[in-house]
Protein backbone atom coordinates (compact mmCIF):
# COMPACT_ATOMS: atom_id res chain seq x y z
CA UNK A 1 0.00 0.00 0.00
CA UNK A 2 2.25 2.75 -1.21
CA UNK A 3 -0.25 5.18 -2.55
CA UNK A 4 1.43 8.50 -2.19
CA UNK A 5 -0.93 10.89 -0.52
CA UNK A 6 0.45 14.25 -1.49
CA UNK A 7 -2.98 15.69 -1.18
CA UNK A 8 -3.53 18.41 1.41
CA UNK A 9 -5.72 17.95 4.46
CA UNK A 10 -9.44 17.57 3.74
CA UNK A 11 -11.08 20.95 3.21
CA UNK A 12 -12.93 22.29 6.19
CA UNK A 13 -16.64 23.08 6.25
CA UNK A 14 -17.50 26.06 4.12
CA UNK A 15 -14.26 26.25 2.21
CA UNK A 16 -14.21 25.89 -1.56
CA UNK A 17 -11.37 24.07 -3.23
CA UNK A 18 -10.73 23.44 -6.91
CA UNK A 19 -7.71 21.31 -7.77
CA UNK A 20 -6.54 21.19 -11.38
CA UNK A 21 -10.08 21.53 -12.67
CA UNK A 22 -10.73 21.42 -16.41
CA UNK A 23 -14.07 21.45 -18.15
CA UNK A 24 -14.60 20.61 -21.80
CA UNK A 25 -18.00 20.96 -23.49
CA UNK A 26 -18.77 18.82 -26.51
CA UNK A 27 -16.32 16.45 -28.15
CA UNK A 28 -14.07 16.11 -31.14
CA UNK A 29 -13.45 19.13 -33.31
CA UNK A 30 -16.35 21.10 -31.87
CA UNK A 31 -15.14 20.68 -28.28
CA UNK A 32 -14.78 23.86 -26.27
CA UNK A 33 -12.39 23.98 -23.35
CA UNK A 34 -14.12 26.31 -20.90
CA UNK A 35 -11.75 25.86 -17.96
CA UNK A 36 -8.14 24.73 -18.06
CA UNK A 37 -6.36 23.42 -14.99
CA UNK A 38 -7.90 25.86 -12.54
CA UNK A 39 -6.80 25.60 -8.94
CA UNK A 40 -8.38 27.83 -6.39
CA UNK A 41 -8.86 27.75 -2.67
CA UNK A 42 -11.32 29.90 -0.82
CA UNK A 43 -11.02 29.65 2.97
CA UNK A 44 -14.20 29.66 5.07
CA UNK A 45 -15.76 33.06 5.51
CA UNK A 46 -13.83 34.68 2.68
CA UNK A 47 -15.46 36.80 0.00
CA UNK A 48 -13.73 36.03 -3.29
CA UNK A 49 -14.54 37.79 -6.52
CA UNK A 50 -13.87 36.11 -9.85
CA UNK A 51 -13.31 38.45 -12.71
CA UNK A 52 -12.59 37.98 -16.39
CA UNK A 53 -13.79 38.82 -19.85
CA UNK A 54 -16.95 37.13 -21.05
CA UNK A 55 -16.40 33.54 -22.12
CA UNK A 56 -13.73 32.89 -19.51
CA UNK A 57 -15.78 30.15 -17.90
CA UNK A 58 -16.66 32.07 -14.74
CA UNK A 59 -20.22 30.80 -14.73
CA UNK A 60 -19.05 27.28 -15.54
CA UNK A 61 -16.80 27.41 -12.52
CA UNK A 62 -19.75 28.27 -10.28
CA UNK A 63 -21.86 25.49 -11.78
CA UNK A 64 -19.07 23.05 -10.97
CA UNK A 65 -18.87 24.21 -7.35
CA UNK A 66 -22.65 24.02 -7.12
CA UNK A 67 -22.56 20.44 -8.38
CA UNK A 68 -24.87 21.31 -11.25
CA UNK A 69 -22.14 20.10 -13.58
CA UNK A 70 -19.23 17.70 -13.25
CA UNK A 71 -15.63 18.61 -14.12
CA UNK A 72 -13.97 16.84 -17.06
CA UNK A 73 -10.90 16.41 -14.87
CA UNK A 74 -9.71 17.63 -11.51
CA UNK A 75 -11.49 17.86 -8.21
CA UNK A 76 -14.08 20.27 -6.87
CA UNK A 77 -15.09 20.43 -3.25
CA UNK A 78 -17.32 22.72 -1.29
CA UNK A 79 -16.09 21.27 1.96
CA UNK A 80 -19.24 19.19 2.37
CA UNK A 81 -21.18 22.30 3.27
CA UNK A 82 -24.48 23.54 1.91
CA UNK A 83 -24.20 25.62 -1.23
CA UNK A 84 -26.65 28.33 -2.27
CA UNK A 85 -26.69 29.94 -5.71
CA UNK A 86 -27.82 33.37 -6.80
CA UNK A 87 -28.18 33.93 -10.54
CA UNK A 88 -28.10 37.03 -12.68
CA UNK A 89 -31.85 36.61 -13.09
CA UNK A 90 -33.77 36.47 -9.82
CA UNK A 91 -35.18 33.05 -10.88
CA UNK A 92 -38.12 33.48 -8.51
CA UNK A 93 -41.11 31.18 -8.86
CA UNK A 94 -43.81 33.35 -10.44
CA UNK A 95 -46.69 31.41 -8.88
CA UNK A 96 -45.50 32.21 -5.35
CA UNK A 97 -45.43 35.52 -3.50
CA UNK A 98 -42.12 37.04 -2.39
CA UNK A 99 -42.65 35.49 1.05
CA UNK A 100 -43.72 32.20 -0.55
CA UNK A 101 -40.46 32.01 -2.48
CA UNK A 102 -38.40 32.49 0.68
CA UNK A 103 -40.61 30.14 2.65
CA UNK A 104 -40.23 27.34 0.11
CA UNK A 105 -36.44 27.42 0.56
CA UNK A 106 -36.99 27.04 4.30
CA UNK A 107 -39.52 24.26 3.88
CA UNK A 108 -37.14 22.41 1.55
CA UNK A 109 -34.80 22.26 4.56
CA UNK A 110 -37.54 20.60 6.57
CA UNK A 111 -38.40 23.45 8.93
CA UNK A 112 -41.79 23.50 10.63
CA UNK A 113 -44.57 25.79 9.47
CA UNK A 114 -44.46 28.30 12.30
CA UNK A 115 -40.68 28.52 12.18
CA UNK A 116 -40.79 29.00 8.40
CA UNK A 117 -43.15 31.92 8.76
CA UNK A 118 -41.06 33.54 11.47
CA UNK A 119 -37.77 33.09 9.57
CA UNK A 120 -39.34 34.37 6.34
CA UNK A 121 -40.37 37.56 8.07
CA UNK A 122 -36.89 38.02 9.51
CA UNK A 123 -35.22 37.40 6.15
CA UNK A 124 -37.46 39.85 4.33
CA UNK A 125 -36.65 42.39 7.03
CA UNK A 126 -32.95 41.66 6.52
CA UNK A 127 -33.15 42.56 2.82
CA UNK A 128 -35.36 45.57 3.59
CA UNK A 129 -38.52 44.20 2.06
CA UNK A 130 -40.69 44.51 5.15
CA UNK A 131 -44.27 44.72 3.98
CA UNK A 132 -43.60 43.42 0.47
CA UNK A 133 -43.98 39.73 1.32
CA UNK A 134 -47.42 39.38 -0.23
CA UNK A 135 -46.36 40.86 -3.59
CA UNK A 136 -45.78 38.57 -6.53
CA UNK A 137 -42.42 38.74 -8.32
CA UNK A 138 -43.86 40.59 -11.31
CA UNK A 139 -45.18 43.29 -9.01
CA UNK A 140 -41.66 44.11 -7.76
CA UNK A 141 -38.88 46.13 -9.37
CA UNK A 142 -35.69 44.45 -10.60
CA UNK A 143 -33.74 45.42 -7.48
CA UNK A 144 -36.48 44.17 -5.18
CA UNK A 145 -36.69 40.86 -7.02
CA UNK A 146 -32.96 40.39 -6.60
CA UNK A 147 -33.36 41.11 -2.88
CA UNK A 148 -36.00 38.40 -2.63
CA UNK A 149 -33.54 36.10 -4.41
CA UNK A 150 -30.90 37.07 -1.84
CA UNK A 151 -33.31 36.37 1.01
CA UNK A 152 -34.10 33.01 -0.57
CA UNK A 153 -30.39 32.20 -0.85
CA UNK A 154 -29.88 33.16 2.79
CA UNK A 155 -32.87 31.03 3.75
CA UNK A 156 -30.93 27.98 2.64
CA UNK A 157 -28.58 28.65 5.55
CA UNK A 158 -25.70 27.69 3.29
CA UNK A 159 -22.01 27.74 4.17
CA UNK A 160 -21.11 28.75 0.65
CA UNK A 161 -22.94 31.36 -1.41
CA UNK A 162 -22.29 31.41 -5.16
CA UNK A 163 -23.26 34.60 -6.96
CA UNK A 164 -23.25 34.81 -10.75
CA UNK A 165 -23.31 38.52 -11.68
CA UNK A 166 -26.33 38.99 -9.42
CA UNK A 167 -26.41 42.77 -9.79
CA UNK A 168 -25.43 42.88 -13.45
CA UNK A 169 -28.87 43.90 -14.67
CA UNK A 170 -29.48 46.62 -12.07
CA UNK A 171 -28.97 50.37 -12.26
CA UNK A 172 -25.92 51.84 -10.51
CA UNK A 173 -27.78 53.28 -7.53
CA UNK A 174 -29.70 50.12 -6.72
CA UNK A 175 -26.52 48.11 -7.15
CA UNK A 176 -24.70 50.41 -4.74
CA UNK A 177 -27.31 49.86 -2.05
CA UNK A 178 -27.27 46.12 -2.57
CA UNK A 179 -23.46 46.16 -2.20
CA UNK A 180 -23.89 47.78 1.22
CA UNK A 181 -26.51 45.25 2.18
CA UNK A 182 -24.39 42.35 1.04
CA UNK A 183 -21.49 43.71 3.15
CA UNK A 184 -23.72 44.00 6.18
CA UNK A 185 -25.21 40.54 5.71
CA UNK A 186 -21.84 38.86 5.21
CA UNK A 187 -20.37 40.62 8.25
CA UNK A 188 -23.02 39.03 10.44
CA UNK A 189 -22.42 35.42 9.41
CA UNK A 190 -19.72 32.96 8.55
CA UNK A 191 -20.43 32.85 4.83
CA UNK A 192 -17.97 31.90 2.10
CA UNK A 193 -18.83 33.82 -1.04
CA UNK A 194 -17.72 33.23 -4.60
CA UNK A 195 -18.88 36.23 -6.59
CA UNK A 196 -18.58 36.34 -10.37
CA UNK A 197 -18.63 39.68 -12.15
CA UNK A 198 -17.13 41.45 -15.13
CA UNK A 199 -17.23 44.79 -13.29
CA UNK A 200 -13.73 45.33 -11.85
CA UNK A 201 -14.78 48.06 -9.43
CA UNK A 202 -17.60 45.92 -8.10
CA UNK A 203 -15.09 43.11 -7.51
CA UNK A 204 -12.71 45.38 -5.59
CA UNK A 205 -15.59 47.01 -3.71
CA UNK A 206 -16.89 43.67 -2.43
CA UNK A 207 -14.06 41.15 -2.32
CA UNK A 208 -11.51 40.17 0.28
CA UNK A 209 -9.69 38.85 -2.72
CA UNK A 210 -10.01 39.29 -6.49
CA UNK A 211 -9.10 36.40 -8.78
CA UNK A 212 -8.51 37.19 -12.46
CA UNK A 213 -9.29 34.55 -15.06
CA UNK A 214 -8.00 34.49 -18.62
CA UNK A 215 -10.49 34.06 -21.40
CA UNK A 216 -11.09 30.79 -23.20
CA UNK A 217 -9.90 28.57 -21.80
CA UNK A 218 -10.33 30.03 -18.33
CA UNK A 219 -7.16 29.95 -16.26
CA UNK A 220 -6.22 31.76 -13.08
CA UNK A 221 -3.74 34.44 -14.17
CA UNK A 222 -3.60 36.77 -11.18
CA UNK A 223 -4.83 37.19 -7.63
CA UNK A 224 -5.13 40.40 -5.65
CA UNK A 225 -5.75 40.68 -1.94
CA UNK A 226 -7.96 43.66 -1.16
CA UNK A 227 -6.52 45.32 1.95
CA UNK A 228 -9.01 48.19 1.86
CA UNK A 229 -10.89 48.65 5.10
CA UNK A 230 -14.66 48.32 5.23
CA UNK A 231 -17.08 50.01 4.88
CA UNK A 232 -15.91 50.70 1.34
CA UNK A 233 -17.35 52.89 -1.34
CA UNK A 234 -17.22 51.97 -4.99
CA UNK A 235 -16.12 55.50 -5.91
CA UNK A 236 -13.42 55.87 -3.23
CA UNK A 237 -9.79 56.46 -4.22
CA UNK A 238 -8.32 53.17 -2.88
CA UNK A 239 -10.98 51.11 -4.66
CA UNK A 240 -10.42 53.00 -7.91
CA UNK A 241 -6.66 52.58 -7.61
CA UNK A 242 -6.70 48.83 -7.14
CA UNK A 243 -9.41 48.50 -9.79
CA UNK A 244 -7.12 50.32 -12.24
CA UNK A 245 -4.34 47.81 -11.51
CA UNK A 246 -6.66 44.87 -12.08
CA UNK A 247 -8.01 46.45 -15.26
CA UNK A 248 -4.47 46.86 -16.60
CA UNK A 249 -3.79 43.21 -15.96
CA UNK A 250 -7.02 42.26 -17.75
CA UNK A 251 -6.16 44.49 -20.71
CA UNK A 252 -2.75 42.92 -20.97
CA UNK A 253 -4.40 39.50 -21.09
CA UNK A 254 -6.92 40.52 -23.71
CA UNK A 255 -4.18 42.16 -25.79
CA UNK A 256 -2.33 38.87 -25.85
CA UNK A 257 -5.49 37.15 -27.02
CA UNK A 258 -5.91 39.60 -29.86
CA UNK A 259 -2.42 39.04 -31.19
Amino acid at each position, binding site marked *: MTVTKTRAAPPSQGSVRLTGVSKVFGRGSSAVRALDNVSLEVPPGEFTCLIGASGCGKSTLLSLVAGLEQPTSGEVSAGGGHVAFMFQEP*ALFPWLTAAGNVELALRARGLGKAECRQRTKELLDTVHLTGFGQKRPHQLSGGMRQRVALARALAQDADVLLMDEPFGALDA*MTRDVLHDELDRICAGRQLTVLFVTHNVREAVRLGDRVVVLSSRPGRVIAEYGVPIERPRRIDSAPVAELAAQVTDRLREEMGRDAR
Partner: protein
Amino acid sequence: MPGNMPPPVDNSVPGYVEKLTWLESLEAPSEQRSRRLAARAWGGLWPIGLAVLIVLAVWQLIHLSGWKKAIFPGPGATASNLWHQLQTGLLWQAIATTAQRAIIGFTLAVLIGAVVGALVSRIRPLRAAVGSLITGLQTLPSIAWFPFAIILFGITTQAILFVIILGAAPSVANGLISGVDYTPPLLLKAGKMMGLRRLSLYRYLILPASLPAFVAGLKQGWAFAWRSLMAGELLVIIANHPSLGVLLSTDQDQADMSSATAIIIVILILGILVHALFSLADGAIRRRWGLTGSG
Protein backbone atom coordinates in the same frame (compact mmCIF):
# COMPACT_ATOMS: atom_id res chain seq x y z
CA MET B 1 -28.48 60.59 16.53
CA PRO B 2 -27.65 60.63 20.26
CA GLY B 3 -30.38 59.63 22.64
CA ASN B 4 -32.42 57.90 19.96
CA MET B 5 -33.19 54.21 19.92
CA PRO B 6 -30.74 52.35 17.71
CA PRO B 7 -32.25 51.52 14.32
CA PRO B 8 -33.34 47.89 13.90
CA VAL B 9 -30.63 47.31 11.29
CA ASP B 10 -27.21 48.84 11.33
CA ASN B 11 -26.64 51.00 8.26
CA SER B 12 -23.97 53.57 7.68
CA VAL B 13 -26.61 56.06 6.57
CA PRO B 14 -29.86 55.51 8.49
CA GLY B 15 -33.02 55.79 6.45
CA TYR B 16 -31.20 55.76 3.13
CA VAL B 17 -31.97 52.16 2.30
CA GLU B 18 -35.59 52.52 3.39
CA LYS B 19 -35.96 55.56 1.18
CA LEU B 20 -34.45 53.78 -1.77
CA THR B 21 -36.70 50.78 -1.22
CA TRP B 22 -39.64 53.13 -1.20
CA LEU B 23 -38.44 54.76 -4.43
CA GLU B 24 -37.98 51.34 -5.96
CA SER B 25 -41.47 50.34 -4.97
CA LEU B 26 -42.77 53.32 -6.93
CA GLU B 27 -40.89 52.05 -9.93
CA ALA B 28 -42.35 48.55 -9.57
CA PRO B 29 -45.06 47.78 -12.09
CA SER B 30 -48.41 48.87 -10.71
CA GLU B 31 -51.50 46.75 -11.04
CA GLN B 32 -54.53 47.89 -12.87
CA ARG B 33 -56.99 47.07 -10.14
CA SER B 34 -59.00 50.16 -10.79
CA ARG B 35 -60.81 48.70 -13.78
CA ARG B 36 -63.99 47.43 -12.29
CA LEU B 37 -65.43 44.02 -13.02
CA ALA B 38 -68.41 45.52 -14.83
CA ALA B 39 -66.14 47.46 -17.17
CA ARG B 40 -64.07 44.35 -17.85
CA ALA B 41 -67.18 42.25 -18.51
CA TRP B 42 -68.53 44.88 -20.88
CA GLY B 43 -65.17 45.00 -22.68
CA GLY B 44 -65.36 41.24 -23.21
CA LEU B 45 -69.06 41.09 -24.07
CA TRP B 46 -69.66 43.76 -26.67
CA PRO B 47 -67.49 42.15 -29.40
CA ILE B 48 -69.40 38.90 -28.87
CA GLY B 49 -72.70 40.79 -29.12
CA LEU B 50 -71.54 42.46 -32.31
CA ALA B 51 -70.47 39.13 -33.83
CA VAL B 52 -73.88 37.59 -33.01
CA LEU B 53 -75.64 40.57 -34.60
CA ILE B 54 -73.57 40.23 -37.79
CA VAL B 55 -74.36 36.50 -38.03
CA LEU B 56 -78.08 37.16 -37.44
CA ALA B 57 -78.08 39.90 -40.10
CA VAL B 58 -76.40 37.67 -42.71
CA TRP B 59 -78.74 34.83 -41.83
CA GLN B 60 -81.80 37.08 -42.17
CA LEU B 61 -80.53 38.39 -45.54
CA ILE B 62 -80.10 34.84 -46.87
CA HIS B 63 -83.58 34.05 -45.62
CA LEU B 64 -84.99 37.18 -47.32
CA SER B 65 -83.21 36.30 -50.57
CA GLY B 66 -85.49 33.29 -50.77
CA TRP B 67 -82.81 30.64 -51.06
CA LYS B 68 -84.40 27.21 -50.31
CA LYS B 69 -87.25 29.11 -48.77
CA ALA B 70 -89.41 26.07 -48.12
CA ILE B 71 -86.91 24.36 -45.84
CA PHE B 72 -84.48 27.05 -44.66
CA PRO B 73 -85.87 28.84 -41.58
CA GLY B 74 -85.04 32.44 -40.75
CA PRO B 75 -83.79 33.63 -37.36
CA GLY B 76 -87.30 34.53 -36.27
CA ALA B 77 -88.80 31.07 -36.85
CA THR B 78 -85.77 29.44 -35.21
CA ALA B 79 -85.95 31.71 -32.19
CA SER B 80 -89.63 31.02 -31.64
CA ASN B 81 -89.00 27.29 -32.04
CA LEU B 82 -86.21 27.47 -29.47
CA TRP B 83 -88.44 29.45 -27.15
CA HIS B 84 -91.17 26.79 -27.38
CA GLN B 85 -88.73 23.96 -26.83
CA LEU B 86 -87.36 25.72 -23.74
CA GLN B 87 -90.89 25.56 -22.28
CA THR B 88 -90.98 21.78 -22.64
CA GLY B 89 -89.34 19.34 -20.31
CA LEU B 90 -87.86 17.35 -23.20
CA LEU B 91 -85.13 19.83 -24.15
CA TRP B 92 -84.07 20.29 -20.50
CA GLN B 93 -84.05 16.54 -20.00
CA ALA B 94 -81.86 16.22 -23.10
CA ILE B 95 -79.50 18.96 -21.89
CA ALA B 96 -79.24 17.23 -18.50
CA THR B 97 -78.37 13.88 -20.08
CA THR B 98 -75.79 15.40 -22.41
CA ALA B 99 -74.27 17.56 -19.67
CA GLN B 100 -74.02 14.56 -17.37
CA ARG B 101 -72.18 12.56 -20.03
CA ALA B 102 -69.91 15.51 -20.75
CA ILE B 103 -69.03 15.94 -17.08
CA ILE B 104 -68.41 12.24 -16.42
CA GLY B 105 -66.52 11.69 -19.66
CA PHE B 106 -64.38 14.78 -19.38
CA THR B 107 -63.58 14.18 -15.70
CA LEU B 108 -62.45 10.63 -16.46
CA ALA B 109 -60.44 11.91 -19.42
CA VAL B 110 -58.71 14.49 -17.22
CA LEU B 111 -57.91 11.92 -14.54
CA ILE B 112 -56.57 9.39 -17.01
CA GLY B 113 -54.77 12.02 -19.07
CA ALA B 114 -53.12 13.54 -16.00
CA VAL B 115 -51.95 10.17 -14.67
CA VAL B 116 -50.62 9.08 -18.07
CA GLY B 117 -49.01 12.49 -18.64
CA ALA B 118 -47.35 12.45 -15.22
CA LEU B 119 -46.01 8.92 -15.71
CA VAL B 120 -44.79 9.55 -19.25
CA SER B 121 -43.07 12.79 -18.32
CA ARG B 122 -41.32 11.17 -15.36
CA ILE B 123 -40.25 7.81 -16.76
CA ARG B 124 -37.81 8.08 -19.62
CA PRO B 125 -38.29 4.68 -21.33
CA LEU B 126 -42.06 5.12 -21.15
CA ARG B 127 -41.60 8.49 -22.77
CA ALA B 128 -39.79 7.00 -25.75
CA ALA B 129 -42.39 4.27 -26.12
CA VAL B 130 -45.64 6.13 -25.50
CA GLY B 131 -44.84 9.80 -26.17
CA SER B 132 -45.38 9.77 -29.91
CA LEU B 133 -48.30 7.36 -29.56
CA ILE B 134 -50.15 9.97 -27.50
CA THR B 135 -49.60 12.60 -30.17
CA GLY B 136 -50.82 10.10 -32.74
CA LEU B 137 -53.98 9.45 -30.75
CA GLN B 138 -54.51 13.19 -30.47
CA THR B 139 -54.62 13.57 -34.24
CA LEU B 140 -56.82 10.51 -34.75
CA PRO B 141 -60.43 11.68 -35.23
CA SER B 142 -62.17 10.13 -32.26
CA ILE B 143 -65.27 9.33 -34.32
CA ALA B 144 -63.19 6.55 -35.88
CA TRP B 145 -63.39 4.74 -32.54
CA PHE B 146 -67.19 4.36 -32.61
CA PRO B 147 -67.44 1.07 -34.52
CA PHE B 148 -64.84 -0.34 -32.11
CA ALA B 149 -66.67 1.09 -29.08
CA ILE B 150 -70.11 -0.10 -30.23
CA ILE B 151 -68.86 -3.64 -30.84
CA LEU B 152 -67.16 -3.57 -27.44
CA PHE B 153 -69.89 -1.96 -25.33
CA GLY B 154 -73.01 -2.13 -27.52
CA ILE B 155 -75.43 0.79 -27.88
CA THR B 156 -74.71 2.11 -24.38
CA THR B 157 -73.55 5.21 -22.54
CA GLN B 158 -70.26 3.44 -21.88
CA ALA B 159 -69.54 3.40 -25.62
CA ILE B 160 -69.96 7.18 -25.73
CA LEU B 161 -67.85 7.76 -22.61
CA PHE B 162 -65.15 5.47 -24.01
CA VAL B 163 -64.85 7.62 -27.13
CA ILE B 164 -64.91 10.88 -25.14
CA ILE B 165 -62.00 9.62 -23.05
CA LEU B 166 -60.01 8.53 -26.10
CA GLY B 167 -60.72 11.89 -27.69
CA ALA B 168 -59.84 14.14 -24.75
CA ALA B 169 -57.27 12.30 -22.63
CA PRO B 170 -54.37 12.58 -25.13
CA SER B 171 -54.70 16.38 -25.20
CA VAL B 172 -54.74 16.54 -21.41
CA ALA B 173 -51.70 14.24 -21.19
CA ASN B 174 -49.82 16.19 -23.85
CA GLY B 175 -50.58 19.48 -22.09
CA LEU B 176 -49.03 18.17 -18.89
CA ILE B 177 -46.05 16.65 -20.70
CA SER B 178 -45.23 19.86 -22.56
CA GLY B 179 -45.64 21.84 -19.34
CA VAL B 180 -43.11 19.56 -17.62
CA ASP B 181 -40.79 19.78 -20.63
CA TYR B 182 -40.85 23.54 -20.76
CA THR B 183 -40.22 24.16 -17.08
CA PRO B 184 -37.63 26.95 -17.36
CA PRO B 185 -34.13 25.44 -16.85
CA LEU B 186 -33.12 28.36 -14.63
CA LEU B 187 -36.00 27.64 -12.24
CA LEU B 188 -34.98 23.98 -12.23
CA LYS B 189 -31.45 24.99 -11.27
CA ALA B 190 -32.79 27.28 -8.56
CA GLY B 191 -35.04 24.51 -7.24
CA LYS B 192 -32.22 21.99 -7.16
CA MET B 193 -29.98 24.45 -5.32
CA MET B 194 -32.76 24.92 -2.77
CA GLY B 195 -32.60 21.23 -2.11
CA LEU B 196 -35.79 20.20 -3.89
CA ARG B 197 -35.36 16.62 -5.05
CA ARG B 198 -37.49 14.11 -6.91
CA LEU B 199 -41.02 14.25 -5.47
CA SER B 200 -40.63 17.62 -3.79
CA LEU B 201 -39.14 19.01 -7.02
CA TYR B 202 -42.29 17.79 -8.77
CA ARG B 203 -44.69 19.02 -6.18
CA TYR B 204 -43.24 22.48 -5.55
CA LEU B 205 -41.65 23.32 -8.89
CA ILE B 206 -42.46 21.24 -11.95
CA LEU B 207 -46.21 20.82 -11.42
CA PRO B 208 -46.94 24.47 -10.63
CA ALA B 209 -44.65 25.54 -13.48
CA SER B 210 -46.60 23.37 -15.92
CA LEU B 211 -50.01 24.66 -14.82
CA PRO B 212 -50.50 27.07 -17.76
CA ALA B 213 -49.68 24.36 -20.32
CA PHE B 214 -51.93 21.94 -18.43
CA VAL B 215 -54.85 24.38 -18.58
CA ALA B 216 -54.21 24.82 -22.32
CA GLY B 217 -54.38 21.00 -22.58
CA LEU B 218 -57.66 20.97 -20.64
CA LYS B 219 -59.11 23.57 -23.00
CA GLN B 220 -58.18 21.55 -26.07
CA GLY B 221 -59.28 18.34 -24.36
CA TRP B 222 -62.68 19.86 -23.69
CA ALA B 223 -63.10 20.79 -27.35
CA PHE B 224 -62.31 17.20 -28.34
CA ALA B 225 -64.58 15.78 -25.63
CA TRP B 226 -67.52 17.92 -26.72
CA ARG B 227 -67.09 16.90 -30.37
CA SER B 228 -66.77 13.24 -29.48
CA LEU B 229 -69.87 13.47 -27.33
CA MET B 230 -71.97 15.02 -30.11
CA ALA B 231 -70.75 12.48 -32.64
CA GLY B 232 -71.49 9.73 -30.13
CA GLU B 233 -75.00 10.89 -29.41
CA LEU B 234 -75.79 10.92 -33.14
CA LEU B 235 -74.34 7.44 -33.68
CA VAL B 236 -75.27 5.70 -30.44
CA ILE B 237 -78.95 6.40 -30.05
CA ILE B 238 -80.25 4.85 -26.88
CA ALA B 239 -84.03 4.35 -26.89
CA ASN B 240 -86.13 6.38 -24.43
CA HIS B 241 -83.08 8.31 -23.33
CA PRO B 242 -83.36 11.79 -24.83
CA SER B 243 -80.14 13.70 -25.34
CA LEU B 244 -79.22 16.64 -27.56
CA GLY B 245 -77.94 14.18 -30.17
CA VAL B 246 -81.20 12.21 -30.08
CA LEU B 247 -83.22 15.41 -30.53
CA LEU B 248 -81.07 16.38 -33.51
CA SER B 249 -81.44 12.92 -34.99
CA THR B 250 -85.24 13.07 -34.57
CA ASP B 251 -85.28 16.48 -36.25
CA GLN B 252 -83.39 14.98 -39.17
CA ASP B 253 -85.92 12.15 -39.47
CA GLN B 254 -88.81 14.63 -39.40
CA ALA B 255 -87.03 17.20 -41.61
CA ASP B 256 -87.67 19.80 -38.88
CA MET B 257 -85.11 22.47 -39.82
CA SER B 258 -86.20 25.06 -37.25
CA SER B 259 -85.81 22.61 -34.41
CA ALA B 260 -82.49 21.27 -35.73
CA THR B 261 -81.12 24.79 -35.96
CA ALA B 262 -82.40 25.59 -32.47
CA ILE B 263 -80.64 22.52 -31.04
CA ILE B 264 -77.41 23.44 -32.81
CA ILE B 265 -77.59 26.85 -31.17
CA VAL B 266 -78.04 25.19 -27.77
CA ILE B 267 -75.00 22.97 -28.40
CA LEU B 268 -72.97 25.97 -29.54
CA ILE B 269 -73.85 28.01 -26.46
CA LEU B 270 -73.06 25.16 -24.06
CA GLY B 271 -69.67 24.60 -25.70
CA ILE B 272 -68.84 28.31 -25.59
CA LEU B 273 -69.83 28.58 -21.91
CA VAL B 274 -67.47 25.80 -20.85
CA HIS B 275 -64.71 27.18 -23.04
CA ALA B 276 -65.21 30.56 -21.34
CA LEU B 277 -64.70 28.88 -17.96
CA PHE B 278 -61.30 27.59 -19.07
CA SER B 279 -60.41 30.99 -20.47
CA LEU B 280 -61.25 32.53 -17.10
CA ALA B 281 -58.94 30.05 -15.36
CA ASP B 282 -56.24 30.72 -17.94
CA GLY B 283 -56.58 34.49 -17.49
CA ALA B 284 -56.45 34.19 -13.69
CA ILE B 285 -53.18 32.24 -13.90
CA ARG B 286 -51.68 34.70 -16.35
CA ARG B 287 -52.55 37.66 -14.15
CA ARG B 288 -51.16 35.93 -11.08
CA TRP B 289 -47.89 35.13 -12.85
CA GLY B 290 -47.58 38.53 -14.47
CA LEU B 291 -47.77 37.08 -17.97
CA THR B 292 -50.32 39.56 -19.27
CA GLY B 293 -49.11 41.69 -22.14
CA SER B 294 -49.59 45.02 -20.35
CA GLY B 295 -47.56 44.01 -17.26
